[in-house]
């Protein structure tokens, strides 16, 4: 296939085409076209770019084809928690992306920061100044806290156990400095999910995951449940969905949930007649990452605090935990060592000690089976 045929094939089909989008901008298409045609990326090294006045959020990417484009600087714009875009925000971003960049918008995987690409190096300060002037800011690059991310939460979800967007705002603004001045051992990601459904995959992807949880049992609206389901379906559907075997259908058709319920959300997801309990707070998990660097590769975050009641709008108790974790890692972590690798290296007992947390049965999957302890 020729280069153009490959590109054309990628503009076809029912799924909206990214090549079409790129073609609708000033993107230097040849870089991509040659890349996909040779099955070899035409981009080259890049990274942090030092621009006076700007701490982080602007980076540069060089290419292997200076004759087409020597480098592409890009700016990461911090976006609101929950992913909302007002018309004004859209217009601001688009105008600046067209004026300073190629006109291609990238809602990044990390947190939906908006990346404006192919900015010229000498224009970076002007762009950031204009962004700031419109109430927008940059960040999320290098060894700093990346843009915080949260699920849509109470804004549009009946499952939300905490105000994800409120907590995102409180924590996001309080740690802004650490998002804009890279100085940690490595990158650090914080994600907030409103409930154990974890629609932002905080536990899989974040160095620090904050997840809304409830401590009491799910509340069952018996009448509502009866009107939604019949005995047969109840038994087959709800009961078989429950991984804990905690649901029982009584003779009078009432559904009982006992203390072995593990608050997995399965029944709650299934019917509006079962609602989460009312004793709510967050669980904090630490050390997740997907990147393969470090000897242990990808790892999911591990529970360090199973239940913490929260007090909006300040959320000082959450901040305290976040700061303690950051301090411990900042002080003892090695260069390019993600939090998870650090925890693995020093051992979880010691890590919990450093952050002043007492272990409880809720933080373990299973206790150890070896009999080697430090006894002192």
């Amino acid at each position, binding site marked *: 296939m020729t280069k153009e045929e490959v590109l054309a094939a990628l503009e076809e089909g029912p*799924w909206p085409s990214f090549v079409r989008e790129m073609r609708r901008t000033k993107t230097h298409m040849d870089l991509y076209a040659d890349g996909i045609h040779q099955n070899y990326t035409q981009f080259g*090294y890049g990274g942090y770019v030092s621009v006076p006045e700007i701490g982080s959020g602007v980076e540069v990417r060089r290419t292997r084809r200076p004759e087409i484009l020597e480098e592409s600087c890009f700016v990461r714009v911090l976006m609101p928690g929950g992913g909302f875009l007002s018309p004004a925000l859209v217009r601001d971003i688009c105008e600046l992306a067209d004026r300073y960049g190629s006109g291609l918008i*990238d809602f990044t995987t990390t947190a939906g920061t908006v990346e404006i690409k192919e900015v010229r190096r000498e224009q970076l300060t002007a762009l950031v100044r204009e962004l700031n002037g419109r109430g927008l800011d940059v960040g999320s690059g290098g060894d700093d806290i990346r843009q915080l991310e949260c699920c849509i939460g109470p804004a549009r979800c009946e499952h939300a156990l905490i105000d994800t967007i409120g907590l995102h705002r409180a924590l996001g603004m309080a740690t802004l400095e650490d998002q804009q001045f890279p100085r940690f051992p490595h990158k650090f990601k914080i994600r907030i999910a409103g409930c154990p459904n974890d629609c932002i995959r905080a536990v899989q*992807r974040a160095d620090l995951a904050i997840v809304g949880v409830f401590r009491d049992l799910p509340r069952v609206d018996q009448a509502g449940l009866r009107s939604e389901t019949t005995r047969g379906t109840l038994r087959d559907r709800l009961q078989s969905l429950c991984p804990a075997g905690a649901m029982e259908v009584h003779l009078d058709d009432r559904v009982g949930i006992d203390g072995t319920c593990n608050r997995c959300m399965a029944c709650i997801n299934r019917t509006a007649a079962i609602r989460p309990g009312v004793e709510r707070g967050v669980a904090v998990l630490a050390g997740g990452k997907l990147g393969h660097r470090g000897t242990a590769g990808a790892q999911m975050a591990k529970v360090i605090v199973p239940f913490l009641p929260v007090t909006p709008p300040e959320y000082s108790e959450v901040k305290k935990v976040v700061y303690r974790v950051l301090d411990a890692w900042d002080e003892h972590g090695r260069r390019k060592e993600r939090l998870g690798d650090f925890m693995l290296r020093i051992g979880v007992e010691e890590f919990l000690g450093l952050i002043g947390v007492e272990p409880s049965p809720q933080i373990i999957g299973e206790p150890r089976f070896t009999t080697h302890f430090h006894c002192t």
Partner: protein
Amino acid sequence: MERIQRLGGVGYPRPDAVLPEVLQRNYGRWTRHEVVRPGVLKHVSDSGEACLTVRLLMPMGKRLSTRSLLEIAEIAERVGAGLRVTSRRAIELVGVPEHELEPAIGALRTIGFPAGGTGRTLHQIVTCTGFTHCQQAALDGPSVAHALGNALFQDAVEERYPTKLTISVSGCPNQCGQANTADIGVVGIYEDVPVVHDDLMDQCDAPLTVRTCPTHAIRVERLENNRQTVRIAAERCVHCGSCALQCGAIEFGRPGTGRAVMSVGGKGSNTGCGPALGRVVAVHVPLSPPFYREIVDPVRRIIDAWVCTAGERERVRDWIARVGWEKFYQWTKLAMPREALDGFRQHHTMLRSDVRFRW
């Protein structure tokens, strides 16, 4: 130690400036929702008010031209809806009035954006920038995702699945595309051994580079001129590329050495078996743009096996936990690669001590 915020940080836009009004009015008051049809959600608040959401399939690599974004925003504004991107970076019109639903969906389809990716469908495919902007990419996430999206398009706009299905694609093991979090993941890897350019060693922090190698394949050596360099033991190398990320003197990822690895069973939520990362089921998969049959075919086979044999609402991971990996390989006709074993790191969790075999 409390942190003090420095002056000058503008920070994040205020939520109240971006939240659509219907959401502000009913904030925290939602009681239930339904998938009206694929791509359309209806949330109901305890005030009785409802909110209709239209979710659009996003071009792969979440790449949008300002022109398209403005066109979408214009339609949203016209019908009085707000706009947002989801955690999988699909685009949503939030708060579409009931009578505007059909016109809005029609208008969006006309400008190229079909509704879909809600409930029991294929959700938005997540992928990183790949060859469109990144030097690490062993495979081009956007085109791989596009090939998959086209092949599975009907699955994104019709409810054909037992429950949601997610596919994610990462250009390399940095996993910016989050491949191994998804029900099905595709990751690019390079299979060459890194080359050290002694003359570039001033761009290399040697001790850090040595430490960065997960298999201790790198050691420091003195050259005749007494300058220091590093050497790589090819037989220990697991082609992770970490050394090249770290050190400017190391070259990794030569043309023609890129391959794909496929994983299944990533899961984020706490239902069923709870959260997990995806497990590697295919390696050394060749890359043939633009249609990537060697990737698309196995993905189809995995989906077919799952659709045919999974229980109601049974996610891929929970399905495999129930039927067993033996059945997974049997039904998908994938050959288990020797590389599925990892004596290096996962010995204890990966091998089994039970004799509960399926045949």
